[in-house]
């Protein structure tokens, strides 16, 4: 099984190389290669998730360490190595990535313009995402992080769409540039943090388990924690550094929005947990109230902003800000159940927001508008599309039996145990979520049919399959979350260094 993690990173890179060798006059061949490699990633990620079992200690499994640079210059033993392993937190994230990219291939089936280049960038991005989730070496983690972020620029600028909405216009180039500048700004902070950590630890290595064994000075922790939290937090949509995210989601092509909101934003939250909270527990304790405040603010702020939107995609974009606010709240509780909830929410939000973007894309591809006031009664023409969208929405507003509720409940329990005021405000945000989701469903899918859309057709088969795959996981986690929770909670307890006691 040791090869499996390497394979997860190698498959998308291999596919990229194959795409490059295919002449661009064979777009169907490109699609088939994408489908096969997408399925391979999905299958392997399911395998990793199913086979993962906590076996004591740090809980890392399928450990694979390939030496790269050691005993040179300032580097000691293990200096920089490609160190891959999976624990209870990254296992669901790997699964999420596998699901979303597989569904994303189906959603991207009809892309005609330079589809070879599109898939090259998309798969490059995915290899970076897998790399971040699996790396146990700060150097490679950072490397993969950049690999995951940078293709976004081209994907948005070339295949994206600009927004024209009354007096408001937002060119896709603007969105792409804004996204990259924000995220590179975050990277700069992380970069500083990584070198500070390296110097302070004095172990001559970037290996995370080694760095994790060091006890850092409390003041150092207090200074370095915010570098990571802010740097990674920007990618997680941390308020008030979130405005790149709705703009970016809206401008991006459908499958990229799915991956971006569904998986990429999770890299930020994952980074905070994997690096900042793991290495600097005292720094985390010190900054937790701030992180909680920003998380709650983001949750409420995103929800209220979503209510003001008429553009479907902007609404989903702001709802992502709101839901990522819940993730940050869960992390900031620093309790087993709260952090558990954060990881669950990362997965739940990943699948349901990917589904929402896929469905918005299915509408937009035919209608070429996204203004919800221009629709009405679409459920008569496209009942499945309406049902899929409704399921995503109901999960998003926290209906029991679907994934969102399980996650939010954990987060709220954690918040009530630590910061009751934040828990109460979080619940308020959930109430607002119900309002904007139901308003949107009523406006777009129900009510009298708008004859302008008489030619509208049901989703393509590929879209139906991709959507059904995502729904299967939304229901699975909503009804039987034990497989997720069993995996996540042990690793979270290790990170938070709690024994059998504690909430």
């Amino acid at each position, binding site marked *: 099984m040791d090869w499996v993690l390497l394979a997860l990173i190698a498959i998308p890179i291999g596919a990229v190389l194959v795409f490059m060798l295919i002449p661009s006059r064979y777009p169907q061949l490109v699609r088939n290669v994408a489908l096969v490699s997408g399925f391979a990633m999905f299958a392997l990620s399911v395998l990793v998730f199913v086979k993962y079992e906590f076996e004591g200690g740090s809980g890392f499994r399928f450990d694979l360490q390939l030496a790269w640079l050691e005993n040179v210059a300032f580097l000691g033993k293990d200096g920089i190595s490609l160190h891959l392993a999976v624990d209870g937190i990254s296992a669901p994230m790997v699964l999420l990535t596998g699901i979303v990219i597989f569904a994303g291939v189906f959603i991207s089936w009809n892309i005609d313009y330079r589809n070879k280049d599109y898939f090259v960038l998309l798969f490059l991005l995915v290899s970076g995402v897998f790399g971040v989730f699996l790396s146990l070496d700060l150097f490679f983690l950072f490397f993969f992080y950049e690999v995951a972020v940078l293709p976004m620029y081209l994907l948005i600028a070339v295949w994206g769409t600009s927004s024209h909405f009354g007096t408001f216009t937002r060119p896709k180039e603007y969105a792409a540039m804004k996204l990259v500048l924000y995220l590179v700004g975050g990277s700069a902070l992380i970069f500083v943090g990584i070198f500070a950590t390296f110097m302070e630890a004095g172990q001559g290595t970037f290996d995370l388990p080694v760095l994790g064994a060091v006890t850092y000075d409390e003041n150092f922790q207090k200074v370095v924690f915010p570098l990571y939290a802010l740097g990674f937090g920007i990618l997680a949509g941390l308020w008030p550094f979130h405005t790149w995210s709705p703009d970016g989601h809206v401008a991006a092509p459908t499958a990229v929005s799915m991956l971006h909101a569904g998986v990429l934003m999770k890299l930020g939250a994952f980074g905070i947990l994997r690096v900042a909270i793991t290495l600097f527990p005292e720094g985390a304790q010190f900054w937790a109230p701030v992180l909680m405040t920003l998380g709650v603010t983001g949750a409420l702020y995103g929800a*209220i902003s979503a209510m003001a939107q008429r553009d479907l995609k902007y609404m989903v974009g702001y709802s992502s800000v709101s839901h990522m606010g819940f993730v940050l709240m869960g992390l900031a509780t620093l309790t087993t159940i709260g952090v558990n909830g954060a990881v669950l929410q990362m997965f739940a939000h990943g699948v349901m927001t990917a589904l929402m973007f896929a469905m918005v894309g299915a509408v937009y591809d035919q209608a070429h508008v996204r203004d919800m006031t221009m629709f009405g009664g679409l459920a008569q023409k496209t009942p499945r599309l309406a049902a899929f969208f409704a399921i995503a929405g109901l999960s998003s507003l926290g209906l*029991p*039996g679907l994934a969102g509720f399980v996650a939010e409940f954990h987060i709220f329990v954690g918040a009530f145990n630590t910061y009751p005021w934040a828990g109460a405000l979080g619940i308020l945000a959930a109430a607002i979520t119900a309002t904007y989701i*139901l308003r949107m469903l*009523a406006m777009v899918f129900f*009510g009298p049919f708008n004859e302008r859309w008489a030619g509208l057709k049901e989703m393509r088969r590929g879209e139906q399959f991709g959507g059904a795959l995502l729904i299967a996981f939304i229901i699975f986690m909503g009804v039987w979350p034990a497989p997720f929770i069993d995996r996540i909670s042990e690793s979270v307890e290790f990170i938070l260094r709690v024994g059998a006691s504690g909430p």
Partner: protein
Amino acid sequence: MLNQIPEGVVWAILFLPFGSFAVISLAALLGLTRTGSWEARFSGYLTMAAIAASFLLSLWALDSVLQEDGARIGYDAHEWVTVGSLRFDIGVTVDGLTAIMLIVVTSVSLLVQFYSQGYMRGDPGYNRYYAFMSLFTGSMLGLVLASNILQLFVFWELVGLCSYLLIGFWFYRDSARRAATKAFVVTRIGDLGFLSAILLIWTKTDQLDIGQIQHLAATGMIGSSVITWFALGLFAGAAGKSAQFPLHVWLPDAMEGPTPVSALIHAATMVVAGVYLVARFFPVFIVSEEAINAVVVVGAITAIMAASLAIVATDIKRVMAYSTISQLGYMMMALGVGAIGAAIFHLFTHAFFKALLFLGAGSVNHATGTFDMRKMGGLARFMPVTFLTTTVAGLALVGVFPLAGFWSKDEILIEAWAEKPLIFWTALAGVFLTAVYVGRMLFLTFGGEYKGGEASDHGAQANSRPAEPHESPWVMLLPLVVLATLATTVGFVNITGGMNDILEGWLPEETHELVAAGDFVLWISVVSVAVGLAGLGLAWAIYSRKAIRAEEVSAALEPVQVLLDRKYYLDDLYETVIVKGVIMRGAAAALHAWDRYVIDGVVNGLASLMRFSSEKYRLAQSGQAQLYGAAIFIGVIVIVASVLQDELLGIVGL
């Protein structure tokens, strides 16, 4: 007498309707339900079979509970998930309260499904209808069987979802989509109180098991402020679901759903879930003075307010919706005076006669194509069965001896008199108002001359309505007759107080002395019936005899009329002021502007500043060698000067 019901059978009660839902959904997905006459109605038969089986098993559960005198038959909880040291369980429990609820839900549901075979015939959404009805029945059974509060909440939300889906069943109508959204959002506001209560009790006591929470509360193991907040949170949820003031606004609009849905969900079962919740946590409410007072005050306000609105509504279903709200207020009042047995007894009788009223209204609509009472009239001649059964239900609602409503309402009045006389007088006023609107509804619909109805807009009857109204088909009449029989007789089951014993048998020992126990008082029964008859008489005088002209009354009371027409301005307050004004135009627009102009403004401003400064700075890089040479020369001078500072200063003699 049967053996005690095993746990697996209890689960079956709940899973049979869920199974029917799953089968119908799957069949619909695979496209198996469209062809042939038998397959077309397969979903209806399957639903009825599943619910009939659940009903029989519920009888078994009731039998087992009777042997235990209503005490709890607890089964072991099963682990659902474990998070670190925290364990979430699922499980079922059966006691007197649950058993009575099971009977109410399964029997009314079964009759309504039967009736729907006629009412929904030919509707394009026939399969969807039965799928949702199965899902609803299963969820409602899960709600009453749940042994822990989180599980109860899960089913609580699922019945809310079904309500949303069924109110919006004819989703292509604008009014239906609005009503569905409103119902979901308003009840959800209450539900968040419920969720907060769960989080609070778990944080403070580490318990989610309902029996354990009851026990802790009854034995004083939970702090009083925690109890109060917990109870108030639960009551927020109950007020949303049971349409109590000020969260009642969704229920009248919910009448947009098909009428059998209104009968089952919005009269007999789902809306009483709030009453059930308060009863289920009665040991918690009763030990908190503030909480129990909140219940009684809200119940009283709701009962009177809704009854007054029922008098002016012109849509027959809305009259009944307000009537339901008002009766739910009665049940809450009863709980608030500590009369849990009377409250649930009233819930029990109300389920039958109110479902009957709705099904009667559906039958009338089937014939006339309208719900507007001003377009009906004289239907007693055309629809004798509907007329008789609806009248029985109406009189039961007023509380006329010896119909079902008499017994349960009387019990509430007696307990109220014993515990809180003020509440007694409020309830008595409510009886009068109830009689007036029931009389008005009966006289407008069935009395006088037929006023023509309206073209039907749903189902197969769309084009085939004859000029004269006709009686409904037997599938619709049979449930009416069965329900009328029940509405006449079910009151007698508690004549010896036997039902109260079952309903109170599960309460913890410590709670027993707090339960209200009034004895039969003859004058109260006489007065309440007299007041009811007086109300009916007034309605007769105005709407049948026309001795008093309705227009004159409303002209004389014009401000009141306006106030009632505007529904006490609550809808305006919520929709225009709060949602549109404060949230949409205020907060959402403000935050949106903040995002666009302040946050983005800073970012874009920073970018502009960079661009501006680099454009200026660019001028320096002109490529002219002279300029660079001059700059280098000046630089060298400055460096040399700073290095040789002291010497230079010495040279000039300083």
